[in-house]
């Protein structure tokens, strides 16, 4: 039984837009900056309601990051908005020096992350951003899984202090996390019970992990689905507790295997509780044009692939322990 059944589909980027608007209304220090993608990243409502606190910087992402860092010096809480590719790879050094190393309270909000950006293709589909931001000292990395959670994560960032990266996406996806579920930065969410295998998922693939759990249940395998919405700092305690309960795990993310959630979990597993591990992720390649669902399918990121990986890792566990 899927406890999280929903027929509602909404964009995670729209959750960001709503969260930002809410923050604008409740915290006068919150300001927003955008590099010519205001409607695309759903900052338009904030821009209309708070024109004096919204900065259109044009197609100049490096300048945007620097201005955001400077605004913190006057006590502002800047949220920058553009696509994930231009939020990270294009401005890595600006983030590194002016935000992270300078420890400034800038919230880097990145839309259209991953393959599900779709038809624009690989120039825009960054699959390395989690890795880039995870590596950076001082940086908090948050990847919410649906509309409600992106809204909640955005609001939570308003009262968080320090550099942060918030990753979300373009397409409409199932909105299944109850709006009432509290969002605590750094706290993993166990979404289902199950003692046979852990599935650690993040972002859009959390929903696919839930679907995979149903498929596994039909085969008599009980999967424990854990939503890792905060990739850094990782909820190591929850990860190890789940690994000890299930003895094997699958990770699932719309990102390269190198540097992503799988890497983060594998590090903790190897150091503290080594168990068989499988990773559902993109393998060392760029994306391409296509519809979001077609791309997830082609690159092996949908529920059946997660279920197959879970079956494999469950078998590995039984062959080593049995």
């Amino acid at each position, binding site marked *: 039984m899927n406890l999280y059944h929903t027929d509602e589909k909404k964009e995670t980027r729209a959750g960001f837009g709503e969260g930002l608007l809410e923050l604008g209304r409740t915290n006068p220090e919150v*300001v927003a900056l955008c590099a010519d993608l205001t409607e695309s990243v759903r900052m338009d409502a904030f821009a209309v309601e708070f024109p*004096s*606190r919204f*900065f259109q*910087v*044009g197609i*100049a992402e*490096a*300048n*945007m*990051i*620097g*201005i*955001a*860092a*400077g*605004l*913190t*010096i*006057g*006590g*502002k809480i*800047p949220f920058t908005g553009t696509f994930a590719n231009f939020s990270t790879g294009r401005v890595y*050094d*600006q983030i*590194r*020096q*002016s935000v992270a*190393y*300078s*420890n*400034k309270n800038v919230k880097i909000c990145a839309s259209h992350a991953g393959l599900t950006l779709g038809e624009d293709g690989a120039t825009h589909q960054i699959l390395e951003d989690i890795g880039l931001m995870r590596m950076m000292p001082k940086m908090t990395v948050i990847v919410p899984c649906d509309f409600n959670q992106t809204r909640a994560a955005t609001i939570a960032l308003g009262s968080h202090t320090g550099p942060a990266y918030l990753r979300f996406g373009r397409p409409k996806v199932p909105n299944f996390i109850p709006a009432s579920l509290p969002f605590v930065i750094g706290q993993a969410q166990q979404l289902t019970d199950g003692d046979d295998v852990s599935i650690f998922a993040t972002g859009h693939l959390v929903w696919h992990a839930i679907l995979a759990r149903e498929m596994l249940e039909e085969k008599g395998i009980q999967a424990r689905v854990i939503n890792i919405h905060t990739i850094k700092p990782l909820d190591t305690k929850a990860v190890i507790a789940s690994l000890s309960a299930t003895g094997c795990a699958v990770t699932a993310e719309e990102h390269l295997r190198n540097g992503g959630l799988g890497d983060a979990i594998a590090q903790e597993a190897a150091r503290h509780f080594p168990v068989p591990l499988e990773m559902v992720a993109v393998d060392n390649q760029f994306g391409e044009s296509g519809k979001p669902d077609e791309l997830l399918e082609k690159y092996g990121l949908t529920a059946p692939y997660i279920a197959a990986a879970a079956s494999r890792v469950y078998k590995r566990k039984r062959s080593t322990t049995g």
Partner: protein
Amino acid sequence: MHDLQAIATQVRRDVIRMVTAAQSGHPGGSLGCADFFTVLYFSVMKHDPEHFSMDGHGQDVFFLSNGHISPAWYSVLARSGYFPLPELGTFRKLNSRLQGHPATLEALPGVRMASGSLGQGLSVGIGAALAKKMNGDPHLVFVLTGDGEIQEGQVWEAAMFAAARKVDNLILTIDYNNKQIDGPVDEVVSLGDLRAKWEAFGWKVLETNGNDISSLLATLAKAKSVCGMNKPIAILMHTEMGYGVDYMMGTHKWHGMAPNPEQADRALVQLPVTLGDY
């Protein structure tokens, strides 16, 4: 003015002694900008060294974008009271607050932003200037960049934005010594008609002799007087790299190289003690 000259001479001594003690650092640009830092901190800026705050509310704030000339800045910060003078002796050494390039994690009073990777300081200054406007704080934001530094594209993103948004509580100074690591700026990648470029971007442009204290005082006073007139302000500050030490002038050789002790002695005899060494 006499006092400012004395301070600037002492700052130059500090620079030589700091980079010599560390056997690394960037004396050339530091010497060239010693007069500017001195005039800025001891005459122009409204600031309270005893009450440094990161947000800088109610004070003028300064950002050093070309972070490699940190020795001169650190010297002026210490001598204007931001931190104890003896700390200058820790420059570039392990466990120091005086990092090779300015940083904030060690919480050195006076420093609000890390710099060293070039081209970022003007953007930061614009952000701080916008925040001052939003906060109703009438104080000013000062930024210093190198001349080679403005080969970085981000500088021109920032230049375009500041004029478009009328960021007129900001005074940018460009250390125009026409030297960078690989040689004369004109030969590496010429800046062309720099005055025309900034004017075309919509800035009010002033020029000054950065190694003449009275010229600096007059130009910075003029710059302050034209703030609030819908244009950001750029000062082309003509300096001589290595100014004050004969063998460091007229060459880019001393951009990023420390003198050995014997060379340092030859420099220090040209820079008499005025305020007392750290």
